[in-house]
């Protein structure tokens, strides 16, 4: 069964950034998600994603959220352009 990492790892940070860009229309401005993850728009996009998938809406890339993000999926965004 999946283990729960205590901290968000560097590769997870990149994965979250890419995921939100691909499927939640997050605009990449070159700034690392690590620096801004407690502020909009990353937090807002994370909340949208968590709400969509029925996860606990924390706005943080917790273990459950990361697990869902790592699942293979369709490449069509979940939010409209």
């Amino acid at each position, binding site marked *: *069964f999946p283990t729960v990492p205590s901290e968000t790892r560097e590769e997870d940070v990149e994965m979250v950034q890419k995921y939100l860009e*691909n*499927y939640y229309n997050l605009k990449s401005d070159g700034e690392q998600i690590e620096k801004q993850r407690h502020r909009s728009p990353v937090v807002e996009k994370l909340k949208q994603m968590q709400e*969509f*998938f*029925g*996860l*606990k809406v924390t706005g943080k890339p917790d273990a*459950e959220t990361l697990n*869902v993000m790592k*699942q*293979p*999926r*369709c*490449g*069509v965004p*979940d939010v*409209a352009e």
Partner: protein
Amino acid sequence: FVLTEGNPRWENTHLTYRIENYTPDLPRADVDQAIEKAFQLWSNVSPLTFTKVSEGQADIMISFVRGDHRDNSPFDGPGGNLAHAFQPGPRIGGDAHFDEDETWTSNFRNYNLYRVAAHEFGHSLGLSHSTDIGALMYPNYFFTGDVQLSQDDINGIQAIYGPSNDPIQPTGSTAPTACDPRLTFDAIVTLRGETLFFKNEYFWRRHPQLPTVELNFISLFWPSLPNGIQAAYEDFDRDLIFLFKGNQYWALNGYDIQQGYPKDISNYGFPSSVQAIDAAVSYRSKTYFFVNDQFWRYDNQRRSMEAGYPQSIASTFPGIGSRIDAVFQQDDFFLFFSGPVYYAFDLNTQRVTRVARINKWLNC
């Protein structure tokens, strides 16, 4: 269900499709069949028809491509994005692209082409991603061994194109809902402190330290297991769980199905008249198997059925009168589930101490 923003739709309900190229992962006939069946799912529940053409421009062009394929949505190598499709419209509209860096299959191995194509064609027809985990239009890949539209998918496509012309209207499957007062469980098992509640092709996963109860597909965790698990128990000493369906059973260590399974339940010493088990639970190295109104007791250490069984459930567990759907053990209690209610049976005082609705276990 969610419609694509702007509600794009095909005005003509008789659509054409063309397979521009074939993946080398599968025989061409398998690709043809997967694509045809995927379209058929949608045509069965709507007025839409799909005709295959072999040359020229079709409404829905299908191709296997990798990496940057010049549509501003590059694929990403193995895993991750599997495929994408465009909303109804001219030129690239409706087209479906499958990532050639994936391995495409016609079985339960990743990734089943029929399953992915069925989802993509939903986009080609104007559907966006659904939040219903049981819907084909849910964005994440699951393969339960069967591909079928959920009622949510049917409602979505019929919201765009209306119902099928067929006088008998097809219905779809629906995911179980935690708060349904008619909910029953197929089987329940503890697993390393968590509790898994099985229902059809799904299970809820309850962790004592987590506030939410997750609904998952059985196939997501154990792709080769069947749906409709009927009984299950945890053998704490061996760190295994055993799952039963019909006269077969599987042993699992976490994610991993142990080699040599499925086996026949006659290995436990059941008579040939027993062809399925309703519920099972292990307690103090004994496993209790419930079948109709009787139960057997199995010695986990001697690995044999104990003499003197079956016995009547009602006489040994007073208050548990009817047939049992599921059972598991917590502290000194057996929690018996029968229909929409459960009974907490105190093993020390040998009596039922609580009766309540089963939805409570799903935080409802």
